[in-house]
């Protein structure tokens, strides 16, 4: 078996595994649902995630120890990950192959030549590590923007699978929606389509993970190189060179992705994977200047405090940044979130959405709740998101901790925010229409929404009695009310009594059976037709901000009850109540 065949099998294996793990990221016990599938496998193997979080939090979250395997293997073998494991890389490899397979050899060789702009990815790496490095100045984890594993994970979760589901419902019972997915798609599509320009464009020019591997792999024990001096410089080896590393001359080991195509293509069998240096010479260091490196690093270091000048982490915080239950306090959260989209994928109610930049530029693609999207707000008995967060930006909390039960009873339930009734839009507050959908749906017990009874006279509701027979009151003139028999309408008598109305016509109302009139009204008395409203009021101390009320509110545009993040448990500086 040829090594390139093994490589292709490996690529297919890991790519399929990756896609499968994304597909199964839905809550359930079936084989095609999450069960105990290690859905974060690729993210945990990714050393950029591990190193990034070590820089920002000065800890290595225990599942990220898997990255040590990748690092050790890279130190020994070189950039094997890029062409044997990385699903994004395999996608680029395949696209590039499709685009170029009918081109003539000289053209292909020319496409694969080394370009000095390949050093840009090292600057990107330096920049991203700079943003993570200095807590005293301000740091956050932004590697997720361009790290290929979170990037492809996010693209599949929020774009590709939901689009595939449309109509076919292959991987989800209901259509999933994700705000701003167009941008995620645009970036993904651009990265893939750029392979039509130069093969493995992203890998060669942009990928910070590849850059990291290039640096780590400098002392690789085995490397591609020539073992004989008789090279005739035909450059066939560069025909399918994936890394753009020029094996025909002085091979640039930091660019070599170990695709072994050169070894396969060399007709004179000169190229080997060997422990000794290439006889044609090799360049192990990435082609970046010290000045360029320092500038990128400094840029990264300064970028975070500059980005924070809008004070979005202070008094100017955006109230719609409602994070999932178990999320850390905001500064700590931004140190861990790699924008992988796992929480968005697993959320059974589809309420977790990728954020835009209203909360600050660091907020981009971090998870926030949008209660209008999905099947309901945050379900009371669900803690799925924390279970799949690879870096514990959302902690894996238990149900007891979320609900404030058992050993967490003294802390109370985790609050995501607080619901606020918009009295200008709420039907019983502003429109004289009975409605208590929010109160009915409030899931906590005792409910966090209670009602205050209030009677209001309906439009043109003050009438003069013409005649009274048994339960029927005829009045002068005509009433515009169409149906007063819903049980919510009452006749206000002159003595202040409220009598329920059972039926009505344009000129009469029928009082409900069994209602006891203390005194029979007489002709000439004035009555008022009133609607009994139950006006919802939020009990701040009990509201957990789950958003089910906002989701159910029948005022479906700008909802009449809306959750915002004031009062969230994770923040000490966003409390509404003292002692919060």
């Amino acid at each position, binding site marked *: 078996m040829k090594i390139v065949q093994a490589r292709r099998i490996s690529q297919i294996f890991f790519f399929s595994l990756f896609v499968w793990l994304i597909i199964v990221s839905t809550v359930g*016990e079936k084989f095609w649902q999450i*069960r105990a599938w290690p859905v974060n496998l690729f993210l945990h193997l990714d050393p950029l995630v591990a190193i990034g979080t070590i820089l920002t939090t000065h800890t290595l979250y225990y599942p990220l120890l898997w990255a040590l395997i990748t690092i050790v293997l890279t130190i020994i073998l070189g950039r094997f990950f890029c062409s044997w494991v990385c699903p994004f890389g395999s996608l680029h490899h395949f696209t590039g192959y499709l685009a170029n397979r009918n081109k003539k050899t000289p053209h292909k060789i020319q496409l694969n030549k080394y370009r000095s702009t390949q050093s840009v990815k090292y600057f990107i790496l330096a920049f991203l590590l700079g943003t993570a490095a200095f807590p005293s100045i301000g740091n956050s984890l932004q590697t997720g923007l361009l790290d290929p594993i979170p990037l492809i994970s996010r693209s599949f979760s929020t774009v590709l699978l939901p689009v595939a589901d449309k109509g076919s419902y292959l991987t989800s019972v209901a259509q999933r929606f994700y705000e701003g997915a167009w941008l995620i798609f645009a970036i993904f599509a651009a990265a893939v389509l750029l392979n039509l320009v130069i093969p493995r464009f992203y890998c060669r020019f942009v990928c910070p993970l590849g850059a990291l591997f290039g640096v780590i792999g400098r002392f690789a024990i085995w490397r591609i190189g020539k073992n004989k001096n008789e090279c005739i410089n035909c450059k066939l080896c560069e025909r399918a060179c994936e890394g753009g590393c020029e094996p025909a001359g002085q091979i640039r080991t930091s660019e070599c992705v170990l695709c072994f195509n050169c070894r396969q293509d060399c007709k004179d069998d000169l190229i080997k994977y060997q422990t000794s240096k290439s006889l044609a010479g090799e360049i192990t260091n990435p082609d970046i200047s010290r000045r360029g490196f320092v500038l990128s690093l400094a840029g990264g270091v300064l970028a975070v405090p500059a980005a924070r000048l809008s004070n979005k982490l202070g008094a100017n915080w955006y109230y719609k940044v409602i994070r999932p239950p178990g999320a850390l306090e905001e500064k700590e959260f931004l140190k861990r979130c790699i924008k992988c989209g796992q929480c968005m994928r697993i959320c059974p109610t589809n309420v977790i959405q990728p954020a835009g930049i209203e909360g600050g530029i660091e907020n981009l693609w971090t998870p926030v709740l949008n209660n209008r999207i999905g099947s309901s707000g945050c379900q009371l008995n*669900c*803690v*799925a998101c924390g279970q799949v967060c690879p870096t514990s930006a959302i902690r894996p909390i238990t149900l007891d901790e979320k609900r404030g039960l058992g050993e967490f009873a003294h802390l109370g339930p985790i609050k995501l925010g607080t619901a606020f009734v918009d009295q200008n839009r709420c039907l019983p507050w502003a429109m004289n229409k009975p409605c208590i959908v929010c109160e*009915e749906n409030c899931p906590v017990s005792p409910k966090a929404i209670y009602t205050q009874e209030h009677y209001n006279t309906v439009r043109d509701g003050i009438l003069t009695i013409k005649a009274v027979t048994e339960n029927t009151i005829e009045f002068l003139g005509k009433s515009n009310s169409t149906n007063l028999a819903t049980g919510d309408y009452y006749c206000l008598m002159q003595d202040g009594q409220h009598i329920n109305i059972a039926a009505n016509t344009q000129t009469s109302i029928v009082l409900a059976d*069994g209602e006891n009139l203390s005194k029979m009204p007489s002709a000439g008395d004035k009555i008022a037709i009133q609607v009994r409203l139950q006006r919802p009021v939020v009990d701040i101390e009990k509201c957990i901000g789950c958003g089910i009320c906002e989701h159910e509110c029948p005022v479906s545009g700008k909802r009449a009850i809306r959750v915002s993040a004031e009062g969230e448990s994770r923040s000490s500086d966003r409390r509404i109540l003292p002692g919060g």
Partner: protein
Amino acid sequence: MNQNNPQFNVGSTGRTNSRLESVVSISIIAILLAIAATLFIRQADTDISRFGITPANLQPSQKPVPEAETSPFIQVPAGFDKLSEPEVYNAENLYEKINGKAPLYTEAGFSKLYCQRFVNKSDANLWMEVFLYDMGNLRNAFSVYSMQRRPDAKTLSAFVQMYGYGTSNGLYFVYGRYYIEMIGSAESDQLVMAMLETAANIQKNPMVAGDLKIEELDLFQSENLVPDSAKLYLKNAFGFEGLSDVFTAQYKIGRQPITVFFSKCPNVQDAEAMAESYRKFLTENDATVKQTTSEFLKNKIFDFYGATEMVFTTGQFVVGVHEAENQDAAEKAAMILAVKLSNSNKIKQ
């Protein structure tokens, strides 16, 4: 020189290390297989309790639960097609179907709901939804049935000897331990015919068989009885948790109908205890004793917020009148019922 060769299969001659290459390649494949096997073994743990939510309460209500037990009761009526798949709900996810009404059922012994929609073959605007609530027993089914009786209920010949009624667009009845509702999209004779046919099919199904009659309801029998006014409160009757298994009905005496009630207790002492606790509840809530000429009803009649309330016992029955307007009429109604109940006592003895 060799630039015109085809892309693949550039096998060179005299390749060295080909053996090693094969060994390495195959070892790598072996490692991949080992990884796949480990993952396959690892994923077999089906305990997903760490996620909190369970699949049963995950499904949005439009979609059927994956292993829906298709209800054998709901057959497609003639001239109709099924509009949706059969759905099954249990006590945990009932609220997804009927939302705020769920506690009415779950607190009355509900165990399963089967429902399905059918649409008329020739007119897509004519469709109906059939609900079969498995309430566990006839009494529970009757309770939820009677508590939701619609004001425009019409007795139907189809339900003679049964508890059931129709409205302009629906059919509601009790059969065995099931409470069945059929709700149509419009007021249409065609729909009513289809509903009646479906109802008949349900009744014919041997799996549905069970008690059809509640004996106690006969105890209300009287010329004053308002037909179909009987209700059964399983617990918390009149807002008092001490009153359970209370049958109520209306007697027409005078202008306003009088609500009478009774509850059958296991023995005389329990009946007296229940009656006493209700009387205590009334007095604690500011009810005052009313005067009466009847020796039997002395200290058993109360003025409760302007209405007359009565509770006493006869044998093992707690009997009474609820929120009556007129004390005389109330006393009359009470006596009618009390006599009926004590007669039944004698027969039993």
